[in-house]
């Protein structure tokens, strides 16, 4: 775990999910965890408007050691979280991932070699779907990777500690958080760098 002083002054994270996968909730939980971690200001920016199940949805998170004053869109994220590998086939999503100075995390067992991601960014994967299925983290039969992905995020960035994410989960679901807490640790352990 890194200390506050070595963390960057400001980090911007983009969440790519599908309607119903809990991407916006995920963004909100991480915002709270980052605040618990000790960042001076956090801002979660769900890009809502015409939300529909299955449609690609973006959410942004800014965590900062200073007061955040911006209300504009995040266009150069430091970290990109992709809930579903198939979304990388969509041009608006692949185009929104920076070509350098960025870490991308994809929920997949094995990343498709033809995925058009830049070689100059760090690419990570974690098997979020199987973790969610194994733990029974589902909604109407669909696996929920929105919480496990936070464990993977902690592993690859060190921006927010597992303890802070646990606290945030407990605040949200109290005793029911147990399964979710287990899931972030499983994801933490199974997150690998692929390039």
């Amino acid at each position, binding site marked *: 775990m890194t200390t506050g002083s070595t963390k960057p002054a400001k980090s911007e994270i983009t969440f790519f999910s599908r309607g119903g996968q809990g991407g916006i909730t995920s963004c*909100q939980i991480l*915002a709270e965890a980052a605040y618990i971690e000790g960042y001076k200001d956090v801002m*979660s*920016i769900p890009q809502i*408007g015409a939300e529909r199940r299955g449609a690609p949805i973006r959410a942004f998170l800014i965590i900062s050691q200073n007061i*955040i*004053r*911006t209300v*504009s869109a995040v*266009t150069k994220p430091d970290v990109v979280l992709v809930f579903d590998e198939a979304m990388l086939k969509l041009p608006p999503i692949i185009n929104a991932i920076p070509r350098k100075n960025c870490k991308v995390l994809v929920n997949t067992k094995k990343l498709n070699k033809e995925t058009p991601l830049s070689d100059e960014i760090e690419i990570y994967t974690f098997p979020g779907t199987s973790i969610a299925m194994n733990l029974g983290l589902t909604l109407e039969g669909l696996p929920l990777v929105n919480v496990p992905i936070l464990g993977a995020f902690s592993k690859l960035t060190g921006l927010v500690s597992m303890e802070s994410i646990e606290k945030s989960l407990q605040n949200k679901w109290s005793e029911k958080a147990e399964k979710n807490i287990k899931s972030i640790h499983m994801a933490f352990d199974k997150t690998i760098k692929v390039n």
Partner: protein
Amino acid sequence: MMKTEQEKENILIMSGNYAAAWGAKCSNVNVISAYPITPQTTVVEKLSDFVDNKELDAKYIRVESEHSVMAALVGSSMTGARSFSATSGQGLLYMAEMLHWVSSSRLPIVTTIASRGIAPPWNIWADYTDILSIRDCGWIIQFASTHQEIFDSILMAYKIAENPEVSLPYFVVYSGFSQSHTSKPVSIPEQQRINKFLPILPEDGWGHLNLNPDKPVTFGNLVMPEQEYLDFRFMIHDSMVKSKKNIHDTINLFNQSFGRDYGGLVEKYMCDDAEVILISYGGLAEQSKDAVDKLRDQGNKVGLFKLRYIRPFPNEELIELFNSGIKVIGVVDQGTAFGNPTGGPISTEVMSLLNHTKNRIDVLPCIWGIGGRNVSVDDQIGLFEKLLYIKNNNEYPTDETCQHGTVWMGLKTGI
């Protein structure tokens, strides 16, 4: 010290809309009526939750439209009940007739607006044209440019509005989505301390008007041309202008009580030695501080003059600014006023005060961010650069986004 008091505050990460709902809850409102409309909906959802869970002892009146919302609150407020609503865009416009009923009845109703674009074409993102188009209906209009300010403003709004000298309704305005749906930390002070700050509700209703079946009165009478209609109109204007004193007093008292200082009707940022000033309001004005910081780092004498209130209008503060030696101002509207002397309503109003100074000041009006169009810090720096160009070259920029004397930031010009 104030610090220990502040530590008692409960900090929650919440959306701008939830901050508005919490503001109403912590103001101990008695009656809520609201009709859901994007992007205001979650204010209504949260408040109905509060009432349903008995966390808030208020009556929630469900109605079929925004017009009825405000009609219902005219009734509740006339009985002396602290009344609250929230709306947005088309809903606010639908409410327009009743807004005049409220102000002309001098009822201290507080309403939050999550401003959005006006259809058609449908647009639900930030655009202050809704509130700007009803700016002359006798309500105090305050912009909240941070999440914390949304919450805090509602507490202050009741304190100001219910002051018998003011007796005017109050809008707290913030932008749709970029403020209503984003989440940030909001500090909620202990309720006991809030209760000490809030005004005490009179038992027999407001001094000027109390709807009580045991003591019947007629209100809203016909007034003949030779009677006092003109005089009553003047009094609304008079009270609005004089409310500036109550606003300052309330901001000071709030600072003493909770340790957060909102300054006054305006907020000046790096204005003291500035030659070039940007005047704006709302969330994007707050963001402009980042642009000012970057330009200051490069040695440019620029500043931001943020309007917190547009009704009452901060005449004195603006005239003082005009006489401070500034050379160029940019006035930015996040809203439209078609056919106005400038493209936006507030730039026109700011320019109307220029004859109070003998100094030559160049003014560049601008419109940005309407319908949620993204405005980045770099875009804002670009506008400052236009202002600096005017100062250095003594001529106005002629690029294609400048139409009819106003910069329409981001206008698609094919270039």
